[in-house]
């Protein structure tokens, strides 16, 4: 491959493919490299995508056969102790009509492959089974292409877009983004559990085609800063659990054993009963937030999506940021071609767009959230236990007066957590998301 391309994209995930769509639409000669056998082969997510960001790239994504599993009509939040827990849920008719496909589930192996296929008619070349191993640079350090693990695999390009995800082996090599610290990523594991479509409808109280997301925190992550989710697909459930990698390194908890324990929790077991595990996977989640974002552009290159740490951990929004940052990168690249300037100056439109969008605004808003969680492990230990204890006490009918029960509950709370600590917890918590 000695050909010269206008743009080389590393990674056929949502960020890379979104950029390819925009570039293809403008007639810019683009090649995408993907290390998997097909796009999506290496990717997982809980599985929620957002219609708004996708429609900005492919307005007719439904007509084009986007492999949608279920339209999300209800979001549940659970706060669990080992024996039970609290549940709140929100459902709205609007998600069935006016806001149809605001959020929907997908399997990434199918979605990414479909999304990449749609670029073909725009003249994009997607080359799979190919690892980009390093970048080509000229004497002045300007990026001028990529090196791959294919024989004679160097490919020249005016601009390289790094859309290679959170586990970027290139990052450390190129120095464009340092390796993440263990506390900047969460390690998540996931089971896909097959169940008949009608049974899922019944268990989650939805109609065919409708789905539910459940986000879970509490004792389930065994004292680690983490979260679990259960998302409904058409005829399967995605069950994921993850925790901060620095906590895993200290805790001696095995991720797959934690996943199995989650599946046995009294709130979870009845939902998956009779299901067949079909696939088991692991992946990082970019948790570092605003302060871990590297320089996202330089001479001849841009970084988009997870590779640039663009992930909102509180709202599990990553795929949308990947798509929109990919689109912004492509728009900036188009401008650079108009100007004939591929230096960081010529590509400056990328950072301007990011700064003016919800992406940077949201990431700034929640910049303290990761630190808050890491500093308050009681969120995952004593607090859910005490909460459950309090509710159980109040609901137990045993001849003890409610006043006496309150006294017992307060005593238990004070024993485990001081008032000062409680106040700090609320102050820090509110401060990190306000």
């Amino acid at each position, binding site marked *: 491959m000695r050909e010269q391309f206008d743009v080389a994209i590393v990674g056929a995930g949502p960020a890379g493919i979104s950029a390819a769509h925009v570039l293809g639409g403008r007639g810019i000669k683009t090649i995408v490299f993907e290390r998997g056998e097909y796009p999506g*082969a290496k990717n997982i997510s809980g599985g929620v995508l957002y219609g708004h960001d996708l429609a900005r790239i492919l307005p007719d994504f439904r007509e084009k056969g986007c492999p949608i599993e279920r339209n999300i009509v209800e979001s549940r939040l659970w706060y669990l102790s080992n024996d039970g827990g609290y549940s709140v849920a929100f459902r709205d008719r609007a998600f069935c009509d006016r806001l149809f496909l605001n959020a929907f589930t997908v399997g990434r*192996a199918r979605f990414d492959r479909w999304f990449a296929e749609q670029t073909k008619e725009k003249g994009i070349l997607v080359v799979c*089974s190919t690892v980009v191993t390093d970048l080509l640079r000229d004497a002045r350090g300007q990026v001028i292409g990529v090196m791959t693990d294919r024989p004679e695999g160097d490919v020249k390009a005016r601009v390289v877009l790094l859309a290679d995800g959170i*586990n970027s082996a290139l990052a450390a090599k190129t120095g464009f983004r340092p390796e993440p610290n263990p506390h900047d990523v969460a*390690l998540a594991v996931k089971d896909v559990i097959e169940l008949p479509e009608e049974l899922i409808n019944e268990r989650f109280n939805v109609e065919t085609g409708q789905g539910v997301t459940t986000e879970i925190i509490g004792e389930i992550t065994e004292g680690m800063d983490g979260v679990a989710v259960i998302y409904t697909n058409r005829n399967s459930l995605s069950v994921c659990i993850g925790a901060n*990698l620095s906590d895993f390194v200290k805790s*001696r908890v095995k991720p797959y054993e934690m996943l199995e324990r989650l599946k046995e929790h009294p709130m979870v077991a009845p939902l998956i009963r009779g299901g067949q595990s079909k696939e088991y*996977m692991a992946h990082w989640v970019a948790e570092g937030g605003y302060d871990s974002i590297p320089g996202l552009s330089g001479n001849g290159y841009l970084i988009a999506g997870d590779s640039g740490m663009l992930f909102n951990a509180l709202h599990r929004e990553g795929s949308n940021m990947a798509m929109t940052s990919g689109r912004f990168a492509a728009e900036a690249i188009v401008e650079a071609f108009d100007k004939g300037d591929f230096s960081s100056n010529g590509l400056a439109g990328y950072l301007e767009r990011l700064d003016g969008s919800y992406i940077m605004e949201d990431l700034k808003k929640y910049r303290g959230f990761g630190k808050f969680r890491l500093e308050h492990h009681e969120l995952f230990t004593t607090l859910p236990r005490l909460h459950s204890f309090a509710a159980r006490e109040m609901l137990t009918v045993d001849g003890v007066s409610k006043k006496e029960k309150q006294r017992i509950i307060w005593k238990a709370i004070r024993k485990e957590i001081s008032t000062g600590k409680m106040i700090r917890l609320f102050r820090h918590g509110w401060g990190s998301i306000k």
Partner: protein
Amino acid sequence: MTVKIEDKLFLDRFRVDEEPHIRIIENAVCMDKCEEQPCLYFCPANVYRLEKDRIVVAYEGCLECGSCRIGCPYLNIEWRFPTGGYGISHRFG
């Protein structure tokens, strides 16, 4: 509760690269310096296993999460992606 990691990995589709993509740089560091040996626990595929006098690496079942590369406290693991098209291929994802 007992779960065997082999049963979980059995569900996945792997195309095994003959050339290992993971290597322990210095076994002496594992055995003499690294007291906690956290790779034996946090690896979601149980790739690292303790044998008598060394850590063995069953790279064939690696899920390619990257955790060992940065989670090893001595950065004693050399890690690259499997050759293009090799390693795990998700069917659902």
